């Protein structure tokens, strides 16, 4: 299931969703879990989000300031918009420094142990979307 959605997404020509500002369909059949999403965002070795962002996760003392706070992300964007932002932020801003979390093409010199792997899995993307959508203020 996951692999089908994954393969389908990677094979989609950019034009299919590249011009839009959202990805309407979830990447998996299983709904995202906000608690798991929070853990992914908090983990500097998994989500890496806190390298650049701050978020309402007070137990993590060291949070970055290269990017806007994630507080209120769910009020600013719809889950569909958040999904696109995570899958490939470059679709929204070609100069962005935010890594593409669910894209394999267009990357160069990826370390051997990460080759052929997306930063997050489809289910992890859905979990993070669920968490971000819950951040209303």
């Amino acid at each position, binding site marked *: 299931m996951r692999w089908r959605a994954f393969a389908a997404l990677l094979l989609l020509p950019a034009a299919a969703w590249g011009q839009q500002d959202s990805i309407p369909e979830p990447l998996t059949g299983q709904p995202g879990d906000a608690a798991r999403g929070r853990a992914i965002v908090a983990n*500097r*070795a998994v989500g*890496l989000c*806190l*390298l*650049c962002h701050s978020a309402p996760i007070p137990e993590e*003392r*060291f*949070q*970055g*300031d*290269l990017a806007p706070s994630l507080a209120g992300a769910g009020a600013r964007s719809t889950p569909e918009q958040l999904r696109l932002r995570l899958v490939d932020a*470059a679709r929204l801003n070609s100069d962005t*420094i935010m*890594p*593409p979390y669910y894209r394999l093409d*267009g*990357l*160069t*010199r*990826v*370390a*051997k*142990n*990460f080759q052929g*792997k997306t*930063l997050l899995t489809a289910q992890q993307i859905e979990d993070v979307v669920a968490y971000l959508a819950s951040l209303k203020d």
Partner: protein
Amino acid sequence: MSSAGDAALEWRAPSGRLRRIPLVRLGFALAGVFCASLALAQSGDLRRSGYQEMGPALQKMQDDDTANPAMLFVQVGAAAWAAKAGAAGKSCADCHGDAAVSMKGVAARYPAVAPAPAGPVDLEGRINLCRTVHQQAPALVAESDDLLALSAFVTLQSRGLPIAPPDDPALAALRAQGRDLYERRQGQLNLSCANCHDDNAGHRLAGAVIPQGHPTGYPIYRLEWQALGSIARRLRNCVVGMRAEPWQPGATEYLALEAYLMDRARGMALDGPGVRP
């Protein structure tokens, strides 16, 4: 050194990072001239060294020769400078005399071009040429304490002097290659060096302040490593943090980046051997 390629490990949050280092008593204090690029600041130059980004405790540790752990290596390097080695049975001092005179300003102009067939080398590479060609001794292993100690000793002789890369067509080509590597996105995170060190310097990556990436203090004693390390080792850490494939030790890519970064830091004061978190 982590090979896991984990960004969180290579750019570590400062929790527990300022480990207490026992005060190193050298028994002698080397006269140190410290110059904080005051002239540059006054001329509207916005460049800042990694030293300037550090907190007062670490700055103090670097400034105090009895507290800077790199100075222990300098002492070892001073002894190696005077020791005969290799089939030639010569010490560095036999040919170069007093390092305070002969090595003054040398570290500030490397990487430089060595006589053919060697071509462009960095300071460690230059020292190893003297080992193999002039002392007829085996090359010292890259990142070994023996090599770093000699390089720290030679570097100290340029403390406070402005970085002054030489003009040479071979170096120009190397710098161009370095600049290209520096500006190109790479790795799973799809970042370039410039994304952080040019566009986001001064910001916090998790807990770590992103420095402008000037190689003013190498070799450095990095608390994270609990060891002295070369600029190539530092660069490798950033490459691994980007989840890009690190180049082989000794690869031209490190030399190219180093040549570009030294040119970018032209005129800034060399303050090595430094201390970094």
